[in-house]
């Protein structure tokens, strides 16, 4: 059994589980980020180097900031950061829904016939990855780019106020 995988899985699942249990939203967010970092470690373990670093750059670097800013800007005060305990019924519902999804996923994975022998490692270099993205999957890449641009423009439209800015004083 592979010790590294066990440690990674423990950190990934453990931090996610504790994040759900904590009352303090900021602590939960930071633990969620730790979980993302563990996912990056898992990619690294699996040999997907580029994906791992992209995961760190995007999730630990950028998405984490969005989450933290959102938490801080939507709360009224520091005391507001502590969540009230969830009623029993809701917790039970969440548990049932979660285990149903997990059951479906497990069933699907275990039911899929997969080659028993270990497949040869793909050994993708960054260059091959880039050629794939720019060649075979160029259309998908462009569509993703357009979607992100539209999202950015929407955010700007939502955030901008129509009032004409006052004359800028000294710059």
């Amino acid at each position, binding site marked *: *059994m*592979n*010790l*590294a*995988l066990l*440690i990674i899985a423990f950190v990934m699942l453990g931090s996610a589980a504790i994040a759900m249990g904590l009352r303090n939203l*900021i*602590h939960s967010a*930071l633990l969620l*980020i730790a979980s993302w970092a563990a996912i990056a*470690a898992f990619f*690294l*373990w*699996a*040999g997907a*180097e*580029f994906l791992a*670093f*992209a995961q*760190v*750059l995007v999730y*630990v*670097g*950028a998405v*984490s*900031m969005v989450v*933290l*800013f959102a938490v*801080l800007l939507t709360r009224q005060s*520091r005391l507001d950061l502590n969540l009230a305990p969830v009623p029993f019924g809701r917790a039970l519902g969440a548990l049932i829904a979660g285990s149903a999804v997990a059951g479906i996923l*497990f069933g699907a*994975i*275990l039911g899929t016939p*997969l080659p028993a022998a*270990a*497949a040869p*490692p*793909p*050994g*993708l*270099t*960054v*260059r091959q990855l880039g050629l794939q993205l720019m060649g075979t999957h160029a259309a998908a890449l462009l569509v993703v780019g357009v979607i992100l641009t539209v999202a950015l423009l929407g955010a700007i439209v939502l955030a901008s106020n129509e009032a004409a800015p006052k004359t*800028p004083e*000294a*710059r």
Partner: protein
Amino acid sequence: MSALPSLLRLLEVGPGLRTGFLRLLSLEPVQRPGSTTMTAATADFARATDVDKGAAFLERLPVVLRDWIASFFPESLRWVVGALLAIAVILAVFGSLFALLTLAERKVLGRVQNRPGPNRTGPFGLFQPIADAIKMLTKEDVVPREADQVLHFLAPVALLGFSILTFAVIPYGRRLVPLELDAAVLYFFAAGAGTELAVFMAGWASHNKYSLLAAMRALAQLISYELPLLLSFVPVVMLAGTLSTSRIVAAQAGWTWGFLPHWHVFTPWGFAGFVIFMVAAVAESNRSPFDLPEAESELIAGHLTEYSGFKYALFFMAEYFGMIALSGMAITLFLGGWQAPLPFLEFVPSYVWFALKLLALLLGFIWLRATLPRLRMDQLTRLAWKFLVPLALVNLGTAAFWQLTAHWDGPLSAARWVVAAVLVVGPFLVLGRGLTAGIATRTYRYA
């Protein structure tokens, strides 16, 4: 119960592709994996043993020393020893460089301001860093009662950890890369992204409104300047066709007409990229004139308000490490890495060239601090979004033009230079006019 092992087997995708530092945990025997990802140790050993028999002795010295020390250990442990040695050397060299840099900064700043600088501790004040270290270690460590104790402690540790991680992929000399990765440049900036998190933790955990506000301001700055920083090196990756730092350095080997090095900084797009990269690097490492996050003279040191003693020193250690690492990356990407500037100077070991370039850039940082006044927050963000980001985007086009016209020669070669230069200077002038519109050229009247 048979479900669990089969699921775990599924997850073992590529057993041959696991990378080095994870192998440290499982302690498996090392085998050379396919082609791309190899551990630092195996790659270095393969190259150190059979290649470069004819290279100069000094050039080979670090690798020879490493192999000699590793030869005392059994075969299966040598890659661990090699990796640990690399870590120890990095910590020792850059730790002492940090100490000397604090002294050099105070000395140079003093000279620029027409005063001697620290000169009481030891000859020429040379023991000043030691005195500073003792002072920092013996100071009381005050933590506010209301502070989030764990995060307050974790913030400086995480910041320092992330900034040390970035040293792993910089090629310090011929065959002197601690960790040879296929996506090394991406690794460097991914490790650097973690510092923002540490700044947030420091500001939030202090339970002080000034700390929190300053941390938000610092984050706005770091995120704004991340963009030009990342955009400015994309042309290098595009033209070198690789994300591996050692191959980017190799792509800059050689000279035109025997004296003009093929460094990226000596091309129009490379020059623009280098300048944008350095401006963004100054801002990313919180150095003057972009030192708003910690503006000790105006903003009571920002997110560091509630820190004291050695934790406070750790923040500055991380700042200097970040500065050194970004300078090292700038050298790798634009200044030819460890390559000698002229052919007849190649007898000097490669790591000496790297060190000289590094010291030059670091002195440049200090010079900037002595020369420029601090920017205001709105000026800072305007510079990033309205000037550096568009320039970096235009620079992508310039680099593409340069690449597509690589086969032009003779008189066309001159045309290539002129067009590329116009593509660099034109947007600079237009955007610069836009940036200073309304305040125009200042006229100074003498009283």
